[in-house]
């Protein structure tokens, strides 16, 4: 079975919510929709305080090349457009909407019917995806329409669909592949047309045999698409690792996948593309896994963007008394929250509740130079070295040692027996090195 070669770790999988079907979460009282839910420039609001909006209505426009439109996820009145506390505790601009009923913008097809015929041209597809504010659902929230435009002089050979879900605990993609498989496959076909590629490969780790099975059965109707089971290994979902595993090509350091003829999209993105193109529905809801060992009912919810995370936790049985940490995303790459009243955004794939006993980091010792971090780094870097160079402010050396190649997968910090804050220090190093490199280009 295929997998990527270099490094990788095997954290316990803990897919607690694996068999919980996707439930639709009831509407909250207010939603808070941040203006920056994607990689790139924040969107500019096009509504004012007091305006009444419908679900699916454009409320903020992404005007830069790398930016994305934002639509209202509910119907109601705009309460304010102001700074609110975001996941990190800093304050960012957001539109707060008081929910009144559930009225949708016209032209949005809310039926469950599967529409297979693709009528739009590639160009139209891209502009539809752009218009509907689709961003990558795999975590990076990179505006998808950008990735659907092949740069001049390059050709895409493969569309790679990321159904790996290598993060422990998370199951939203898994459920999506089981419950919305056909829609997703149509979405993939749409993306193939936009990119003008013949082949699409869906990579799925073999801890999801039911999903592999299910998709394989459906594939006969969708030529050009294949499913490839992969050996479980974190971070297989990283796009460079996935490309290596599936087509054995290495994206060169500092380059994009298109360099080796690949474009990677997440299964959730394909589903969102389907809805945008065939149903005219903007990205206003998503599947979120709510899980954790202390939680009563680990679940998968279909949630409107902007719903407070507290609501999700409540719906999954309430926050356990001895919760020590709440993480937005997976345990390896997610962000820990200082406040659970922050909203779900386009990039929220899961909410993870850790008990106090589970969360603590190990006491920090000196690095014993065991080399484990270097041996598991999927990018072939030397985390111990990068960390120490970064903490000595030696950013030129960091650059030399390819710190910018780090995908922040967290494997190194996970594995280190000395509990070194490797990734923490590497992140600082990446930031500063990035600044250094940019200042040189100026």
């Amino acid at each position, binding site marked *: 079975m295929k997998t990527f070669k270099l490094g990788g770790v095997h954290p316990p999988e803990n897919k607690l919510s694996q068999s919980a079907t996707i439930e639709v979460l009831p509407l909250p009282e207010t939603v808070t929709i941040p203006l920056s839910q994607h990689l790139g420039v924040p969107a500019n609001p096009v509504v004012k305080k007091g305006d009444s909006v419908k679900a699916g209505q454009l409320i903020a426009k992404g005007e830069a090349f790398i930016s994305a439109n934002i639509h209202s996820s509910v119907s109601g009145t705009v309460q304010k457009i102001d700074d609110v506390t975001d996941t990190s505790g800093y304050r960012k601009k957001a539109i707060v909407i008081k929910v009144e009923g559930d009225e949708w913008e016209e032209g949005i097809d809310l039926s469950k019917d599967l529409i297979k015929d693709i009528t739009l041209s590639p160009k139209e597809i891209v502009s539809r995806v752009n218009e509907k504010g689709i961003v990558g659902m795999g975590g990076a929230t990179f505006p998808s329409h950008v990735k659907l435009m092949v740069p001049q002089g390059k050709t895409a050979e493969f569309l790679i669909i990321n159904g790996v879900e290598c993060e422990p605990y998370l199951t939203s993609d898994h459920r999506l592949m089981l419950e919305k498989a056909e829609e997703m496959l149509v979405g993939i076909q749409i993306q193939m047309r936009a990119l003008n590629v013949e082949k699409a490969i869906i990579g799925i780790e073999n801890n999801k045999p039911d999903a592999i099975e299910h998709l394989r059965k459906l594939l006969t109707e969708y030529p050009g698409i294949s499913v490839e089971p992969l050996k479980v290994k974190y971070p297989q979902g990283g796009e460079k690792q996935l490309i290596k595993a599936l087509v054995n090509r290495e994206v060169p350091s500092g380059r994009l996948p298109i360099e080796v003829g690949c474009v990677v999209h997440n299964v959730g993105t394909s589903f969102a593309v389907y809805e945008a193109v065939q149903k005219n529905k903007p990205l206003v809801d998503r599947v979120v896994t709510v899980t954790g060992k202390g939680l009563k009912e680990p679940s998968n919810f279909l949630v409107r963007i902007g719903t407070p995370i507290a609501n999700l936790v409540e719906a999954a049985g309430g926050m356990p008394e001895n919760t020590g940490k709440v993480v937005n995303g997976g345990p390896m790459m997610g962000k820990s929250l200082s406040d659970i009243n922050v909203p779900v955004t386009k990039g929220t794939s899961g909410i993870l509740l850790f008990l106090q006993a589970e969360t603590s980091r190990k006491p920090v010792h*000196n690095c014993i130079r065991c080399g484990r971090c270097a041996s598991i780094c999927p990018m072939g870097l030397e985390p111990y070295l990068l960390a120490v160079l970064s903490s000595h402010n030696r950013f030129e050396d960091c650059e030399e040692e390819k710190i910018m190649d780090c995908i922040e997968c967290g494997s190194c910090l996970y594995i280190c027996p000395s509990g070194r804050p490797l990734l923490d220090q590497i992140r600082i190093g990446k930031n500063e090195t990035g600044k250094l490199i940019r200042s040189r280009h100026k």
Partner: protein
Amino acid sequence: MNLLTVSGSPHVYTEESVSKIMYGVLFSLIPAALVSFYFFGLAAIMVTLTAIVSCMFFEFIIQKYLIKGPVTVFDGSAIITGALLAFIVPASLPLWMVVIGSLVSIGMAKMTFGGLGKNIFNPALVGRVFLMISFPVEMNLYPKPTSFSTQLTDIITGPTPLAVVKEGVAQGEKVSDLLPEVPEYVNLLMGNMGGSVGEISAFAILLGGIYMLIKKIITWEIPASYLGSVVILAGILWMIDPEVYVDPLFHLVTGGLMLGAIYMATDMVTSPMSRWGMIVYGIGCGFLTIVIRIFGAYPEGVAFAILIMNAFVPLINRGFKPKRFGEEVKNG
């Protein structure tokens, strides 16, 4: 109040920890210790205990009163240093010398550089070489193995097999005439020979090594390349003239080679990080060991070889980087 914790990703961590690794090593040392206690009796036990206790003591004193940092005596690394230091000195060594060795190991070779993980040279080996140069007389008297004895003084000493062969060859005697003077290979393998406390039984050490390999405490690269290069080099010389150069198997099972290759060269702190670095390091150790054993003044070269290669580690780490992802474009 129950505050939420904030930290950077990731949020899950392995169960591995420094002390788990260290105690794993200690556990794997048990067979070798038992063999030596059997052959050298109470003297070996005393030397081992003294070394361990004094290493821990010095580590504690220095961390607490000189560096004034956190005290980590129980992370196990000082215990290993003590145990390994004891394992590479003769069982008949006066205990006060063992204490000096411990002071040198911990105080000079480890704490001078800031403690665990920061030292450049293997502490136990620095201790041993220091003793060897300081007290050549005492460090050259090796007790003869007996079955368990409680004798502490007037131990009968004799040369180690390596010394017998080296001395003999230097006098122009033939290897085939010398081999009958040393124990048979089975005895050499099991540990029935003169030598330092813990180095005598290649077999027991191998057992410990296999345990550490399975537990992933060490990797195969260093022991394999070290032992391999010794066998190859000794083999070449042996094929040139078997009457002057003893056979490779003899090199493998005598002296501190096995202990060195499995426990000392593999000390992660003082060995290279990347796979190829480790292999180069192992080969360097093997080469130097043979050079010193065969051409140098000392019958045994493991300690010097590893220390010298320790000094090369920073350069090796610079020169042998892991293969980076996307370094060379390979398509297809």
